[in-house]
């Protein structure tokens, strides 16, 4: 096994099996790190907790819901707004965060009364919202507060409201991934099958594992609507609570982030016979193939192909402009879970960059299988890295850019490596054909930023260049390009708008009359 031992982790020998280098001739049966295990004591992990994984990754993107934490205010406040999962109802779910504000006295005397009071107050404060998700935290779980009983009591007293209870305290798993698992299973056990939806199309899907980061969901739903497909629910970005109670009526589950949401797809397959189709929403070829697969499933491949042709013609010349300028740049692809495999091959194909390392904070071995399979030889794969290992890897690999979260991203800047936010994005959405070009533009702007070039100057010893008074990204990026490329009439920089999402919300779609008899619920 080609394990990689970090010098900084020699004092934590168990860490050795959490990093591998994919050497020549290595495959998944010989190069796979351990994963989804408790963090080794002494290793300062970058992971989140199981409460955060349940609430802030999966629960909170639901848009028409009060998301209440039963615990100290810090649990919800310190994890609030860590992701930009917007919604088309004025971002209700992002604007507020709710907690019962447990204190020491509640640990002694219990906090069930406090919880009930908070639930009722929250519903009264937002009288148009009739749905709530309720989350256990470490403190309330350890004292044994029965939040299910309180939720049932409130629902009996206020029959117009519905409450979902998620028992995923922070200690409920090795990482946030434990919370993803718990909330998937809790949702299908408690809520799916409770609402019968209005079916308006012959082709009905659930779009699963999609969190509408900066509008990703709305971009993809636009494609599906252009194909005449009804998106019954999205689990959970920009998703509606009641739509998600009717997931059992879809014909197909289209799964994007398998790391966070494959559990509910697997259960829907077992319980309701709904097939699961894994797709990639990133990358020209991968996205095109994904749309084609959905089209094939419903016998409307021609509609998918029309979108692929139109979007490719519009956006490919812009992608290729960036590809010429990003060719061979070294990338550390260090996201949380699924993007290490969603992006690993697509960024190489479409942008010409070279992925020298993948890591995952909370991924399982299955994510590493996908990520390593999609990397080229020589890539360093790290599970649950600590900060010192990340620094050592950056020194060793000398990447041109790193895609990661904001905490390790800010650390990377100290080593003069620019970073892009892989979780919340910089100037997203990144999904869709146009979104993928926006991602390339962000990479280009980060690598060739004139300000970033200044960071390479060490003011303690280097001479400060005062002659180069004006620089642009293009002046830096085009130095070694051929005239054929720089003068190309075909290739062009990104020409899209600043806001690509608002226009989608008022768009009208072609009418594809249904052939089958539809429900009239």
């Amino acid at each position, binding site marked *: 096994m080609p394990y990689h031992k970090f010098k900084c982790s020699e004092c934590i020998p168990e860490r050795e099996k959490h990093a591998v280098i994919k050497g020549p001739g290595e495959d998944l049966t010989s190069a796979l790190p351990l994963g989804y295990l408790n963090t080794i004591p002494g290793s300062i992990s970058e992971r989140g907790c199981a409460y955060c994984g349940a609430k802030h990754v999966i629960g909170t993107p639901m848009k028409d819901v009060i998301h209440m934490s039963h615990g100290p205010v810090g649990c919800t406040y310190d994890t609030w707004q860590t992701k930009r999962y917007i919604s088309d109802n004025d971002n209700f779910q992002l604007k507020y965060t709710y907690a019962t504000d447990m204190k020491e006295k509640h640990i002694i005397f219990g906090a069930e009364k406090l919880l009930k009071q908070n639930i009722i107050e929250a519903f009264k404060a937002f009288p148009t919202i009739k749905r709530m998700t309720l989350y256990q935290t470490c403190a309330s779980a350890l004292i044994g507060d029965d939040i299910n009983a309180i939720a049932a009591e409130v629902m009996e007293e206020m029959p117009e409201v519905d409450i979902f209870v998620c028992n995923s305290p922070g200690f409920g798993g090795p990482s946030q991934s434990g919370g993803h698992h718990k909330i998937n299973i809790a949702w299908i056990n408690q809520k799916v099958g409770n609402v019968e939806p209005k079916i308006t199309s012959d082709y009905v899907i659930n779009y699963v594992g999609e969190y509408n980061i900066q509008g990703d969901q709305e971009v993809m739903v636009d494609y599906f609507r252009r194909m005449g497909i009804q998106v019954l629910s999205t689990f959970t970005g920009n998703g509606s609570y009641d739509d998600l109670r009717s997931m059992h009526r879809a014909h197909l589950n289209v799964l994007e982030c398998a790391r966070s949401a494959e559990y509910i797809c697997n259960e829907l397959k077992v319980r309701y016979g709904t097939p699961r189709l894994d797709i990639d929403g990133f990358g020209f070829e991968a996205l095109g193939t994904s749309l084609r697969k959905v089209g094939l499933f419903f016998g409307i491949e021609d509609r998918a192909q029309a979108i692929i042709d139109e979007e490719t013609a519009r956006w490919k010349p812009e992608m290729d402009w960036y590809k010429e300028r990003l060719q061979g740049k070294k990338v550390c692809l260090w996201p949380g879970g699924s993007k290490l495999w969603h992006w690993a091959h697509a960024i190489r194909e479409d942008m010409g960059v070279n992925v020298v390392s993948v890591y995952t904070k909370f991924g399982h071995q*299955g994510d590493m299988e996908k990520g390593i399979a999609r990397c080229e030889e020589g890539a360093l794969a790290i599970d649950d890295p600590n900060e010192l290992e990340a620094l050592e890897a950056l020194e060793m690999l000398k990447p041109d850019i790193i895609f990661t979260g904001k905490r390790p991203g800010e650390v990377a800047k100290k080593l003069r490596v620019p970073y892009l936010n892989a979780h919340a994005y910089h100037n997203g959405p990144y999904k869709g054909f146009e979104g993928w070009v926006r991602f390339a533009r962000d990479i280009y702007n980060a690598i060739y930023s004139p300000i970033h070039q200044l960071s390479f100057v060490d003011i303690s010893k280097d001479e400060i260049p005062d002659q180069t008074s004006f620089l642009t990204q293009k002046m830096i990026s085009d130095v070694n390009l051929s005239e054929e490329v720089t003068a190309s009439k075909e290739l062009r920089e990104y020409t899209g708008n600043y806001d690509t999402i608002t226009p989608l919300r008022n768009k009208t779609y072609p009418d594809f009359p249904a052939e089958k008899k539809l429900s009239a619920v």
Partner: protein
Amino acid sequence: MEDMMKDRVEQLVDYIMKNCLWQFHSRAWDREKQNEGILTKTMQILCEEPVEKETPMDKVYWVDAVCLADAFKKRYSWLAALDKGEIKLLMQGLKERMDYLTITGSLNAELTDPHY
């Protein structure tokens, strides 16, 4: 001859690993069904044989198989020179290799977890 077959199987494996996701379901029993369902249908499409796609599960395997067969034909020109018997042999080799890489030889400790 055997080396050529091995090399061709590896080319097909490389395409699947870089571009597909269906081979990496989370449990061994699902991976067995996925590999069997999709690769059998891919072989049938390449051999121009009838393909079952009446049930939702058959249809979802068929969808992946259609895209896989198209990608193979587009990328590997040597495929056009093979007769049906050779394609079946090739696809059998591919199935065995995929089963080894993703199931029997896999180091993924979660494959045998009895629950989702």
